[in-house]
């Protein structure tokens, strides 16, 4: 019996679409029990990665292992252990919600009808309603319910929050988090709304230009990055640091760096960045607009920072 500790392992994983690579040389290991945020700009390969994990797409190169199993050779074994929510939330719009539950029940041996009914009742979604007549938020809830009622060990959620209003977003996250607490599932969730992810995730995978830029514990990620704020003349470049991005305002310069060492230089004000700042720094670096002052102000809520808005 396979008893892997990793929920998702990739090595040299790549997917080519014609001449271009949707994902390239992707290697990381996601431990079980984590809630991983999968972030990156559009076209960075987030959906491709999730679809390969779900067995919808076959890799062009490299290997992927889902809960210690191959999505290719142990397809059913993998499929019954995952819950996949597609970005577009495709639905059989003319089917009723209860019919979708019947579909889920007939296609999945571990189906939990009571859980599905409970979720839908809590959300006030009528079983007789046709899926196509529900609001976008309710459709997303139905899709998530269909995922969760499979009782998956690994949830692969592609942009589950996209196009949802704030209330629907928080309801969906509520349902998801309750499941994570109750069932202890591993989650990989892609999103553009980094703030939403920061509250729930403890692992971060950043994809840039079809490659993995970061795959790390959130805690370690935050601890190993520093935001340096100093006069425009200052330079943060030393042997111990990797500069991720630099943004200049009129009076000062902000550097986001990766380092394991404390910063001794007194000309810098050193701040622990938020996940959003780190992700934005990586995205900005790759888009080649590092010098644009796209984030001129620091959030005012920060305790240690004494930075004033210009």
């Amino acid at each position: 019996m396979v008893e892997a500790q990793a929920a998702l392992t990739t090595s040299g994983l790549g997917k080519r679409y014609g001449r271009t690579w949707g994902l390239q040389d992707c290697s990381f290991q996601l431990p079980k029990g984590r809630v991983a945020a999968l972030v990156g700009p559009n076209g960075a390969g987030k959906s491709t990665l999730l679809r390969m994990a779900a067995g919808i797409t076959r890799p062009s190169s490299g290997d992927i292992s889902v809960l210690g199993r191959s999505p290719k050779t142990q397809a059913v074994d993998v499929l019954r252990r995952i819950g996949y929510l597609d970005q577009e939330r495709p639905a059989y719009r003319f089917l009723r919600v209860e019919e979708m539950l019947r579909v889920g029940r007939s296609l999945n041996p571990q189906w939990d009808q009571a859980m599905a009914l409970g979720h839908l009742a809590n959300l006030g979604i009528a079983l007789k309603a046709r899926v196509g007549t529900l609001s976008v938020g309710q459709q997303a809830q139905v899709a998530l319910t269909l995922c969760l009622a499979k009782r998956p060990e690994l949830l692969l959620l592609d942009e589950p929050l996209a196009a949802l209003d704030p209330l629907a977003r928080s309801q969906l996250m509520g349902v998801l988090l309750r499941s994570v607490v109750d069932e202890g599932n591993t989650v990989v969730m892609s999103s553009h709304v980094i703030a939403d992810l920061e509250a729930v995730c403890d692992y971060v995978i950043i994809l840039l230009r079809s490659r993995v830029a970061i795959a790390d514990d959130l805690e370690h990620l935050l601890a190993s990055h520093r935001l340096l704020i100093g006069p425009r003349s200052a330079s943060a470049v030393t042997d111990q640091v990797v500069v991720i991005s630099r943004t200049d305002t009129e009076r000062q310069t902000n550097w986001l760096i990766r380092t394991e060492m404390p910063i001794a230089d007194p000309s810098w004000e050193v701040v622990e960045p938020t996940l959003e700042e780190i992700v934005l720094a990586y995205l900005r670096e790759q888009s080649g607009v590092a010098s644009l002052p796209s984030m001129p102000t620091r959030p005012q809520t920060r305790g240690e920072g004494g930075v004033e808005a210009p």
Partner: protein
Amino acid sequence: MTWFALRLQRLQFLVAVAALVLLACWLVLTGTHDQAAWTALVHSGCLRTTGPWSTRCNLLGTRFGGTDQWTLANLMILYAIPGLVGVVFGAPLVAREIERGTNRFVWTQSITRTHWLAVKLLVGGLLTAAITGALIPLAEWWTGAAQTGAQVDPKTFDVVGFAPIVYGLFAFLLGAALGALIRRSGWAIAVGIPLFAGARILVRHCRWHFAPTTSWASNTTGASPGPVWPVNNGLEYQPANHFWALQGVEAAIFIVASLLLLGLTVLAARRWRS
């Protein structure tokens, strides 16, 4: 999965059944009329007269002859239905799921893609067979009533026996294969119908070779062979008792083609990644 596959095809099937019922009414109506016109003509004795027809005979003759206009139309409908039903049932089978993205839902449930496809093809195939099969007794009665000719004659041949079911299943798998390859149900239907018609016309054209023919010259006894299918510019004919042999060869050809299309569908659907 069976229930699911049935549910997805339910509307299509009900529409086809409704169309079938309408067609049945129309065929019974015209068939009864044709039958009456024919019976009247036969009982009048006009067919045995050698001289010019009386006004009454002309009237009866015109009445029966007048049925030709819809007899031809009805035959066309009966030729078309297996192809239409089959292609329309088959084309969306895989294509609609890919168009709507629902393949990514169903492919991530706890069954393999092959299992999914097998059940869908089986259910769709049975529904197609049910519709085309229901057509056969109706067509057999109607062709008799409308005097469309010997069963071995192509005019009648294509709508009786087991040919319509075989055509229907061939069209269904043609639609399914095109849908899986093109991934657009509309296009699969648009391409499938002419392809089906082409295949039917081609086989129909070759059909008279499928069983040994009898030459009129060899018929020295002078006894009438009964209703036959004249072939080869009328020099030879296929006797009525070759009907099942011809149906068998024709069915075999379409079944082999269907199996190839089945293989193509499975390959295309298994290979397709999104």
